[in-house]
C-alpha cells in the first residue's frame, strides 16, 4: 500500500528521525494559518501517490503566510500525472547545504531488506543506479537482529558521507531500518536526507510502501488507505475483495488463478483483442462471487464484451455457469459473453450455459477468438 509523504514522516517521527515541523492543509486558508504558526518561510508540497512532484510544479515556496496561501492555491487542484492534488504538506523551509540518499528495499534475491545509501541525494535514485552505480552502497540487513548502529555507520562511511553526518546519519539509518521492519514495509526512503547550513541532519522527504499482507497487524496504517483517483474501480474492487487491475482495452477478462488470468490476457492480445482488465476470482469461487465479478467488470464503460476462463479444480463448472446466468439480468443487454470451462463440472456447466443461450469456447484460444470476433462484429453494427 502506498502512503503519502506526511504519513511516511509520521512513521519516521515515531522512531525519532528528525523531520521539519509542519502539517497537512486542505485549503489555502489552512495553509496560511499553518505558515503563520510555523513562522518564517515555508514549503508547500503536493500530497499525491506519484513521483516527480517537483518537476510538475507540485512543490512551491512561500516567504510569508500570504505567499503560502497563494502557493497552496496554485498547488491544490493541480493535476499531476492524472492525479488531482487534494491536500498539501506545509513545512518550514530548510537551508540545505548537502543532500544524501538513504533507502531500504525488500530484495527478492537476498530474501532480506537491503540498505542502499548514496551521497548523490535529492535526485531519482534509479537514475543514479543507471548512470553512476558506484555511488550507491548496498548491504542486506540480517533479520535476526536488524541493522545495528555500527553497521549503519560503516555503510555511510563506505559511501563517503562526511564526519559531520556519520553519527547522526547512522542513528537515522538504524531507526529507518527499525521502522521498515516493524511497519512491514516493502520500501522506505529518505530522499533527500539533508545537512542544513546550521549543521542539523533531517529527513526532508520520505517515501514508504507497506506490505498489503501485513496490514492486518497495522490497523492504524491500514486506515490511511484512500482511493487512487486515477483508478476508482481498483479501489472499489479491493473493498469488495476482488483481485482486479484496470487495463486500457475493451475485453473484460475473468479467470481463476493469477497465472491463468495473465495468460488469458496474453491470449486475447495474440488474437487481436485488447484486455480491459485483470480479474482473478481465486480458487473455489461460488456462483455469487462469479456473478459479482461479472457485474463488476461490466461497470467499466470501456468493456464491450467479457471472457470468462475457468480451469475447474476446486472451482466447479456448474457454480461458474450458475453465476454467469445469475449476473446476466444485471448486465447491459446484448453485451457479448464467452465462457470457457474445463475440469470439474465443465460438462454440466456448459449444458447450463447452452440452455441459457450463452456462448462458450472449447478452449482458451477458441474462447478468446470468439469474444474478440463478437466485439468486432458489434462495432461494425
Amino acid at each position: 500500500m502506498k502512503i503519502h509523504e506526511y504519513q511516511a514522516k509520521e512513521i519516521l517521527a515515531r522512531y525519532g528521525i528528525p523531520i521539519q515541523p509542519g502539517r497537512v492543509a486542505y485549503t489555502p486558508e489552512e495553509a496560511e494559518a499553518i505558515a503563520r504558526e510555523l513562522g518564517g518561510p515555508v514549503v508547500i508540497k503536493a500530497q499525491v501517490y506519484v513521483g516527480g512532484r517537483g518537476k510538475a510544479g507540485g512543490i512551491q515556496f512561500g516567504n510569508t503566510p500570504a505567499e503560502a496561501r497563494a502557493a497552496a492555491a496554485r498547488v491544490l487542484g493541480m493535476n499531476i500525472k492524472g492525479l488531482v492534488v487534494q491536500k498539501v504538506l506545509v513545512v518550514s523551509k530548510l537551508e540545505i547545504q548537502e543532500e544524501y540518499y538513504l533507502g531500504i528495499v525488500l530484495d527478492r534475491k537476498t530474501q532480506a531488506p537491503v540498505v542502499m545509501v548514496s551521497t548523490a541525494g535529492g535526485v531519482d535514485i534509479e537514475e543514479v543506479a543507471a548512470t553512476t552505480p558506484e555511488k550507491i552502497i548496498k548491504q542486506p540487513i540480517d533479520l535476526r537482529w536488524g541493522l545495528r548502529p555500527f553497521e549503519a555507520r560503516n555503510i555511510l562511511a563506505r559511501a563517503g558521507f562526511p564526519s559531520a553526518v556519520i553519527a547522526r546519519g547512522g542513528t537515522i539509518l538504524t531507526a529507518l531500518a527499525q521502522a521498515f521492519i516493524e511497519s512491514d514495509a516493502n520500501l522506505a526512503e529518505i530522499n533527500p536526507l539533508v545537512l542544513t547550513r546550521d549543521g542539523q541532519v533531517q529527513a526532508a522527504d520520505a517515501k514508504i510502501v507497506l506490505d498489503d499482507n501485513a496490514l492486518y497487524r497495522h490497523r492504524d496504517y491500514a486506515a490511511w488507505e484512500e482511493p487512487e483517483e486515477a483508478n476508482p474501480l481498483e479501489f472499489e474492487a479491493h473493498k469488495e475483495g476482488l483481485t482486479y487491475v484496470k487495463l486500457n482495452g475493451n475485453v473484460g477478462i475473468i479467470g481463476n488463478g493469477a497465472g491463468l488470468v495473465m495468460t488469458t490476457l496474453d491470449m486475447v492480445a495474440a488474437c487481436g483483442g485488447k484486455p480491459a482488465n485483470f480479474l482473478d476470482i481465486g480458487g473455489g469461487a461460488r456462483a455469487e462471487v462469479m456473478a459479482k465479478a461479472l457485474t463488476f467488470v461490466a461497470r467499466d464503460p470501456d468493456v464491450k464484451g467479457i471472457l470468462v476462463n475457468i480451469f475447474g479444480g476446486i472451482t466447479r463448472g456448474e457454480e461458474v455457469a450458475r453465476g454467469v446466468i445469475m449476473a446476466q439480468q444485471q448486465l447491459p443487454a446484448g453485451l457479448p459473453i464467452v465462457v470457457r470451462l474445463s475440469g470439474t463440472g465443465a460438462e454440466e456447466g456448459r449444458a447450463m450455459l447452452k440452455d441459457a443461450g450463452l456462448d462458450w469456447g472449447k478452449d482458451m484460444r477458441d474462447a478468446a477468438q470468439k469474444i474478440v470476433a463478437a466485439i468486432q462484429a458489434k462495432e461494425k453494427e
Partner: protein
Amino acid sequence: MSILLDEQTRVIVQGITGREGSYHTTRMLEAGTKVVAGVTPGKGGQSACGLPVFDTVAEAKAATDANASCIFVPPAGAADAIMEAASAGIKLIVCITEFIPVLDTARAMLVVREHGATLIGPNCPGLCTPGKGKIGIMPYQIFTPGPVGFISRSGTLTYEIVALLTEAGIGQSTCIGIGGDPVIGSTFVDHLKLFEQDPQTQAVVLCGEIGGSDEEDAAEFIKTMRKPVVAFISGRTAPPGKRMGHAGAIISGNTGTAQGKVAALQAAGVPVADTIFDIPDLVKAALAKKA
C-alpha cells in the same frame, strides 16, 4: 524415480482440522499419498480424516517418523508453522498459504536454511508425482506418469498446461508449483538441479511469469544442463508497476518484464512457447532430440 516426493515420503498436514486442510488431506489420501498425521495446536489426541492429530510437529514426527509437511495454516501463523516444521527436523515443507507477510517468510527462510530443509511455496499449489501421490492442492486426475519435469510459479496455469501435455500423450515425472510470492523457499534453479540428476526426467518445462529475475537465473543454469528445457512466460501484456494477482508478479522499472525473461531463456538456447498450445510440440521435439 521422481524428485522430492516418492514412496518414502511420509506427510503430516499442519492445519488438518481447518476446512481447506481437511478437504485436501482427503484428496491427498485418495491420490495415494502417505499422509500419516495432522497437527493442530489444542486438538492433540483427536482425529481428522482418519488420522491422529497432534498439538506439535515434534510430537507428530516422533510418533509417525514423518519426513514432509503440508501447511494449510492461515497467513498470520503460517511462517511460524514453517519454522516449527523445520525446527522439528522435517526436510520437505510445502506451504500452500497465500497472503503471508513477506518479512515473515524471509524470517522463516533463515530457520529453513539453518536446518537444511527444503521449502516449496508459500502461495503455491504444492507438488505432484503422478502414480505416487501429491502434496498440496493440485487436481490429481489430470496428471499421468512420464518423462517430463514441470516447474511453475502459477497454480491453475500448471493444471492447464499439464492437461495439454497429458492430452498429447506426454507424461510427467514430478510437477512443482514454486509459488507466486516475491520471497519463496525454492526457485527454478533449485528444482532444475534435481531434475538434471533424476533418471526418470528426460526434459523439463519451466513456466515463469513477470516479476523478479528467477527466470533469468534459471537461463544461466540451463546453459550448464544436459537435459533440454522448454519454457513459457505469462504476463507479456502486463503493464509496469501493477501487481498481477500474485504478490510477486510485478514489473519494477525495467526488471521483471516478460520480454526480458523470454530473451534470457532464448539466449540460453531454450525454446519459448508463444502460447501454451505450442508447448506439447516443443516438448515432443525436445524429447525426440534427446533420444
